[in-house]
Every structure is written in structure tokens, then in C-alpha cells.
């Protein structure tokens, strides 16, 4: 917008953040450069093409299914008279707090061959269930635990939409359903694209789900290289392929998002709150839909965990370590959320307000790391820390730094969306009233972007709480978190032992999520209703 150059206090930190974001990429290039000729054998073997296709298929399928699942949920809980819609609005976001490896374990326990569902159905003579392992199971599981990324964004976008546009469509003779497709949906496109991108990148980088559900994807191949070949070079080469892959996803998202740069309301007339659409007879199918999604994504894993927990308790398993783990997880999660929020701010401001090549590059750079499996980020930081930042290596601040690099896009995305909705004239007004560029950001931009800032912080918090590979390798030695406790228990096959920390993790992560959704509800138009003349 403004053609004045970004102040140094914005672009210098933004470039520093970009440098930190480049650490994994530089590491991968260094590692791959050290490879011999064997690398081409590895990259050109048929299996590489197969896992590339598998990964692409999974990413696209997850992107599509999360959108299909989330948009109706967002609309039902945001724009209709669905019974108990506030309750559903909160519950539908909560599958986000279930770590995907825990979710995958629960899905296998419930829907796998000889699982709970099978046990329940076998008296009815049903002996064979559709196979859960492979593409179907991985797809289902990833969809169930990543659709909230789309839901959160779409719901915010829906709340910020001007109902007048839908009313205009109705006035032009469109029925309620067609209005949704011709007017509402196209306006939600950027939010859907951004959310689906996060879900797809998550699917690409996730290791737990594809392993537990036995689907041959890139991350699985990368882990095999580390785990059984002890071959860092080939793993790095595969990871670089994954980066190329992520670039393709980013380009696709940029295309879908379109070229709209500003979403703040233009023109006069105040935004009004939309009147809820009466569902009538459709109420019951709608309720069944919400119940099915929340049931599979939230009730099922919690149910399985509680069942395991009960069995553990009845055998007298100890619960020690859960409190310490919870406190440590909270500490890391909150620090990383705060740091990521701060680090994302200059990047988002640069990308939105000074849309130049630097801003775009920095923003895009942050997403590339997001597609990499955690082990790659972790080893990149092992390399950096042990060799060049020895005093910081395996300390809390260094762990937080690695988490920030891994999850920054979540904060950047949320802040970016909020900034786009802030009229840049606000900042200019602050400048003419005597505030410097940073003063204007502090006194106007940040308070107005608060919904996005807090949403981004909450997302980072949630994902850091769940994170495992980076935590395992970079935490201070002896520092146990809930996720390491779950890993430790499941690693030796003791699921009952894993249940207590897993339930604690879900409970602790759910708190900010519930607060976040509640805030959203209380101030539906605070951010979009920038007062304009209304006669």
C-alpha cells in the first residue's frame, strides 16, 4: 500500500526471521551436496516416484476433504439456527488438540481389524470391516485431525462477510442454496485455500499417521533412511524433494487464493450481523453430520484413551510425571507461542503492507519448513546448535527457537489474515497524529489485529504441545513433556501408560482453544466493523 519503504525495525527482524527459517533448507543443501553418486540411484528408483505420487495423492485428498468437511460445519455453526450451535462451534474445533499419532492409535484401536467396532459388530455376523490400513485410513485420520485448520479460518471469514452481498444474490432471484454457492462460497475461497494448505502441508510432513496406518509416503521413507540406514545424505535428498513438493502446493494455493489483496470493507454502509438461516427439517441431518464429525474426531480418541486409562488404573499404573510433564509442556508451548507471535509480526506486516519481493519471499520461506518432517528440522538444529551455537544447544531457548521455525507459518497466516482486514488508513491516521511507524503499529495495528494474533498464538501453542521429534532431540536433557511421556509409553507398547499424559495433553490444549472460540463468539464483528458512515 504505502510506497514508503518499510522501517528498519520491521524489515531487519523480518529478514532475521527469514534467515532462521532458512536453517533447515541450508542444512539439507549442505547434506545433499555431500552425497555421492548413490543419491541418483535413490532418487531415480521407481519407489521414489511411487511415494511421490502417494504423498501427492494424500496431500490433495486431505486438502479437498478437509475443505468439504469444514465448510458445511462453519456454515452450520456460524450462519444457521442449528440447535446448540455454540456448543458445536467449540466441539468442532477441538479435534485439533488431539495429537495425530494418538488419533491414529485410537482409529486403529477402534476401526482396525479386531478393533472395538469389529468386536461390537461381530455378534451381528459382520466379520470383515473395510481395511483401515493404507490410503483410506491415513486419509480419514489426517482429515479428522486437520480439518479444524480450515474450519477456524472459514468461520472467521464468514463472520467478517457482509451479509448484504448474500442479500443481493437473494434479490437477484437465487435461492438460499444457490446463494451459498454463487455468493458466500467464492468469498470464502481465500480462507478455504489457506486452511487447506495448512492441512495439506501437515499431511505431507506428518509421520505418525502414515506409519501407524501403513501408508507409504515421503516422511516414512525419510524416517527409514534415518532409522535403519543411518543415512543422513539420502534422507536429506528425499527431504529436498519434499521441499520441491511443498513449493508446488504453495503455488497451487496462491492460485486458488486469487489476487485479492484487501478484505477490509470498502464503501459506505456498516456491516450487519447476518440473520441465522432457519434449517427447518434439515435440522436433523445437520445435527447428525456435526455429531458424526465430532464423534469421530473428538469423542472416539477420548473414548479410547479413557478406556485405556481405566485399564491402566485398574492395574495400578503410576500417574507420576504427568503433572511435571504438563507444567513443562505448558512452559514450552507458551514460550514458543509468544516467540512465534512476535517473530511472525514483522513478517506479516512486511507481506501485507509492503508487498515487495522481500516480503513475499520471507512469507513463502516460512511455509517451506512447515512441509518438512519434524526429524529434519530437529537434525538441522542439532547441526546448527552443536557445531555453531554450543552454549545454546539443548537448552530451553534453543528448543523454543526450533519450534518457532517449525510452526511460524501458523502464526504468520493468522496475523496476515487479520492485517488484511485492517484498513491501512488507520495506520496513516496514527502517523499524522504524531506516531512513528512503530508507534503506529503498536497503538493501532496490533490492537486491531489482536484476534488474528491470539488465534495464531493459540495454534502454535497447540501444535508445540503435540510436537515430538524436535522436542526429543533438542529439549534440555531430562526435561520431560507430555508428548515425550506419550512417546515413551507407546514406544514400549504400553498404551494404558500413554493414556494419562495423552488425556492431560488434550485437556491442557483444549483450554486455549475453548477460550479462543468463546472470544470469537463474543466479538463477532469487532474486527470487521470498522465504523463507516451509516447515514
Amino acid at each position: 500500500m504505502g510506497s514508503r519503504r518499510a522501517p528498519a525495525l520491521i524489515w531487519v527482524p523480518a529478514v532475521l526471521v527469514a534467515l532462521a527459517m532458512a536453517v533447515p533448507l541450508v542444512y539439507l543443501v549442505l547434506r545433499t551436496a555431500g552425497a555421492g553418486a548413490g543419491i541418483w540411484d535413490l532418487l531415480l528408483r521407481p519407489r521414489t516416484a511411487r511415494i511421490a505420487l502417494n504423498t501427492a495423492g494424500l496431500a490433495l485428498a486431505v486438502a479437498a476433504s478437509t475443505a468439504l468437511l469444514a465448510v458445511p460445519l462453519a456454515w452450520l455453526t456460524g450462519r444457521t439456527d442449528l440447535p446448540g450451535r455454540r456448543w458445536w462451534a467449540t466441539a468442532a474445533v477441538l479435534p485439533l488438540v488431539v495429537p495425530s499419532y494418538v488419533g491414529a492409535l485410537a482409529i486403529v484401536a477402534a476401526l482396525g481389524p479386531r478393533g472395538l467396532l469389529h468386536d461390537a459388530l461381530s455378534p451381528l455376523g459382520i466379520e470383515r470391516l473395510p481395511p483401515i490400513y493404507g490410503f483410506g485410513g491415513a486419509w480419514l485420520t489426517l482429515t479428522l485431525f486437520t480439518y479444524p485448520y480450515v474450519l477456524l479460518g472459514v468461520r472467521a471469514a464468514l463472520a467478517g462477510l457482509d451479509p448484504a452481498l448474500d442479500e443481493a444474490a437473494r434479490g437477484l432471484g437465487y435461492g438460499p442454496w444457490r446463494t451459498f454457492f454463487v455468493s458466500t462460497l467464492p468469498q470464502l475461497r481465500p480462507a478455504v485455500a489457506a486452511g487447506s494448505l495448512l492441512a495439506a502441508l501437515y499431511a505431507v510432513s506428518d509421520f505418525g499417521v502414515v506409519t501407524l496406518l501403513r501408508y507409504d509416503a515421503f516422511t516414512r521413507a525419510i524416517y527409514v533412511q534415518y532409522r535403519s540406514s543411518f543415512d543422513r545424505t539420502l534422507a536429506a535428498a528425499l527431504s529436498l524433494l519434499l521441499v520441491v513438493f511443498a513449493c508446488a502446493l504453495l503455488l497451487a494455493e496462491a492460485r486458488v487464493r486469487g489476487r485479492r489483496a484487501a478484505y477490509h470493507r470498502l464503501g459506505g454502509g456498516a456491516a450487519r450481523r447476518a440473520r441465522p438461516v432457519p434449517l427447518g427439517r434439515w435440522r436433523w441431518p445437520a445435527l447428525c453430520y456435526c455429531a458424526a464429525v465430532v464423534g469421530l474426531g473428538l469423542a472416539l480418541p477420548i473414548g479410547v484413551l479413557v478406556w485405556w486409562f481405566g485399564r491402566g488404573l485398574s492395574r495400578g499404573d503410576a500417574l507420576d510425571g504427568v503433572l511435571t510433564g504438563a507444567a513443562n509442556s505448558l512452559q514450552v508451548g507458551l514460550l514458543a507461542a509468544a516467540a512465534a507471535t512476535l517473530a511472525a509480526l514483522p513478517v506479516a506486516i512486511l507481506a501485507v503492507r509492503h508487498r515487495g519481493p522481500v516480503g513475499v519471499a520471507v512469507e513463502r520461506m516460512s511455509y517451506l519448513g512447515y512441509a518438512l518432517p519434524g526429524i529434519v528440522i530437529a537434525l538441522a538444529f542439532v547441526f546448527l546448535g552443536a557445531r555453531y551455537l554450543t552454549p545454546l544447544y539443548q537448552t530451553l531457548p534453543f528448543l523454543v527457537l526450533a519450534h518457532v521455525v517449525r510452526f511460524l507459518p501458523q502464526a504468520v497466516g493468522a496475523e496476515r489474515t487479520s492485517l488484511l482486514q485492517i484498513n491501512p488508513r488507520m495506520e496513516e491516521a496514527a502517523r499524522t497524529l504524531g506516531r512513528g511507524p512503530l508507534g503506529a503499529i503498536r497503538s493501532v495495528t496490533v490492537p486491531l489485529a489482536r484476534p488474528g494474533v491470539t488465534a495464531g498464538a493459540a495454534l502454535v501453542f497447540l501444535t508445540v504441545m503435540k510436537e515430538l521429534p524436535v522436542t526429543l532431540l533438542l529439549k534440555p536433557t531430562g526435561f520431560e513433556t507430555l508428548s515425550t511421556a506419550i512417546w515413551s509409553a507407546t514406544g514400549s507398547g504400553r498404551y494404558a501408560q500413554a493414556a494419562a499424559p495423552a488425556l492431560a495433553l488434550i485437556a491442557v490444549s483444549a483450554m486455549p482453544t475453548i477460550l479462543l472460540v468463546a472470544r470469537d463468539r463474543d466479538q463477532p464483528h469487532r474486527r470487521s466493523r470498522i465504523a463507516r458512515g451509516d447515514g
Partner: protein
Amino acid sequence: MFERDPSERTDLWAVYRRQLNRRAVMRLVAAGGAGLAVAATALPAPWAVAQNETPEAEADPEADPEADPEAEETDAPPAGGSPVGSAGTLTIYSGRNEELVGDLIARFEGATGIDAEVRYAGTGELAATLLEEGDNSPAGVFFGQDAGALGALAQEGRLAPLPDELLERVAHEFRSPDGLWVGVSGRARVAVYNTDLLAEADLPASVLDLANEEWRGKVGWAPENASFQAFVTALRILEGEDGARAWLEGMIANEPVNFGDSNGAVVRAVGAGEIPLGLVNHYYLYEIQAEEGELPIANHFFPAGDPGSLINVTAVGLVADGPNAERALAFVDYLLREEAQTYFAEETSEYPLIEGVAPAADLPSLADLELPEIDLTDLADLEGTQALLTEVGLL
């Protein structure tokens, strides 16, 4: 009591950690929510004390641990469990799970007065970490789940030689010929089978028989698991490259159920009756039964030096140029004492590797097992096994 260097600051870290945990609990109870962020940032910076190499460690005669009089001292038996020699901290990278070895390490701390800081993670991830850390690793010792990872580290020059006195406690087939690592406990490859679905008479005499038509769809395996790959490596050595390939291809044609890298999942599936038989390590049966209660499953040891009954080892090695070499030696020493070996026999159902300690009651003794003629060092050739597994399409 403690022989402590006045400049030793590592104990501060331990104190801090205990304080942190206590405080953390109190904070959790008292504050609960987001107010924690403030409290968390106000804590003393752990990085100030987390990393250090004591001057003592730096002054270590780097070359031969045997020349170190302190190392000699650790070889003396502990006097009534009272701490000996080198009190202070030791960082252990453990690829073995905390559930399995956490108690053992606590006993080691009690016996020696050494404060063990353990980083638990996957054996492969920790090996990769040690390689990335280069000369700056804070780890003194690496305790891995299989000999292969230690072989890979040895090959990259990341392990320091162990004194003969320690090496000689373990039979030569369970240690590195270069003296760079030593086996700690043994894990036998077996076929776990469902006793409701298979009678003893139905069991195969050799693992090679599983490639026959009669076992179509009846076998579960975990080809990404390191133990399985060690077995394939043994197969390559015993049956030749072509023999191993023929067996793998025969197995694949027989459509076994693939459980990725999880032996536990194989045993569970066998216990649930999903499949009659699975190729796993012997001790998973005990773990799963502890978890699930009695299941209709039993271990089948292949007789007569069959490659299917390979015994692989968990192993330990000193990190080259690692800090606190004498404490690291004390740890290796402890693992190879009767106390620790009994722990493996009783708590993890693994095979003890030193003379005079017997395995768990219902296991055939190590001496009674007719093991395949194999040198565990050769199992370090995972590269070739990976290539083969890749070639047949399993990786």
C-alpha cells in the same frame, strides 16, 4: 564422601531441575492458565548451567582410558553400594526406552553417585544426532537398541575404544572386534504364534519354510524394524545374497501382513487372532501380555542354527572425545555387572550376556540355543540389506 571438584557446576543444574519440577507443579496447581507464560520467562535461565564440560573432563588423558587410574578404580566392585570414584554428571543418549531402562539407570545413579542425564529417543535418531553433533556432543555414552546403530557410529569414527577388561565379560560374538562397542543384553528372533490357531506340530522347522504356499497370508512381519533387518542381514550371510532374495520374494508372493516397523503390533495381531504367526523378537510376548493380560500366544525358537533364531544385542559405546569419559566407563561397567544383567533377565525378559546370570525362567538358556554361525559385526552391513529390501520393494 563425594570427591567433588570445586569448580563443578553441574550439580547446580541438577538442583535447578529438581526446583523446576517442584515449582512447575506448584505453578500448575496455582496459576493454571496463561499467567504461566510470565512465570515461565521469569525462571532462571537453564542454559546458564545446562551445558558444561568440567575442567576435569577436559584435562582427561584423551587417548587410552585404560591409562586412566580413575578408570581402573571403577573396575573395583562397589563397596556395599556406596558411590565410587567419579561423582558428577554423565549424559547418556539412550535409544532404549525409558520404560525399559529408566529404573536401571536410577540404580546406576544410586550405586555410583553419578548423576545421569538421559536423553531418550529413537536409536536411529540418536545415531543421526551424534553424527550431526560432530565433536561437540554433550553425550558421554550411547546406549543403542541394536548393534547396527553402534556399527554405523563406529564406522564414522564416533566411538572410542573400550578397555579389554570390560569387553572380555561378554562372549566375543556379542561385541565389536575392534573393541568399539559391547553387547549388553540379547534379543532372540522368534516366531510368535497363536496357540488357538496353531498346534506345536504345525510350527515350521525353519524360517525359510514360511515362504512356502501353506503359509500364504498367515504371517505377519515388520520389515522396517531394525531387528528384522538384522535378521535379513544374517540371512544374506548364511544363505547368500541370492538365497536371501529368493526367500524375501517368496515371502512377498505369499502376501504377509506388513506392520511397518512395529513388532508390538505384530504380536498384538497374533494375540487377537488376525494372523496365526509373526516374526518378532522374543520379549514382545511378555510386554504385550503384561499390557493385555493372558493371550493365547507363545514363542517358537527355530532349532538347529536356523537363521530365524538369530540373537541380536542391545549395545553400548563410548562417544569419541565425549565429556566425562571415566563416568561413561563407569556406566558401561555397571551395565556389565551382575546387578544390571539380572535386571535385564527379570525386568525386560532379555538375555543376560555375562557368565553366571540366567535368563527368565521359561526361556531356553543361551547355551541351549543352537545359534546360527554369525559374526554380529557383519550385521553392520545394513547398507546391503537396505539395498536388497529396496530392490524387492519392501522399503
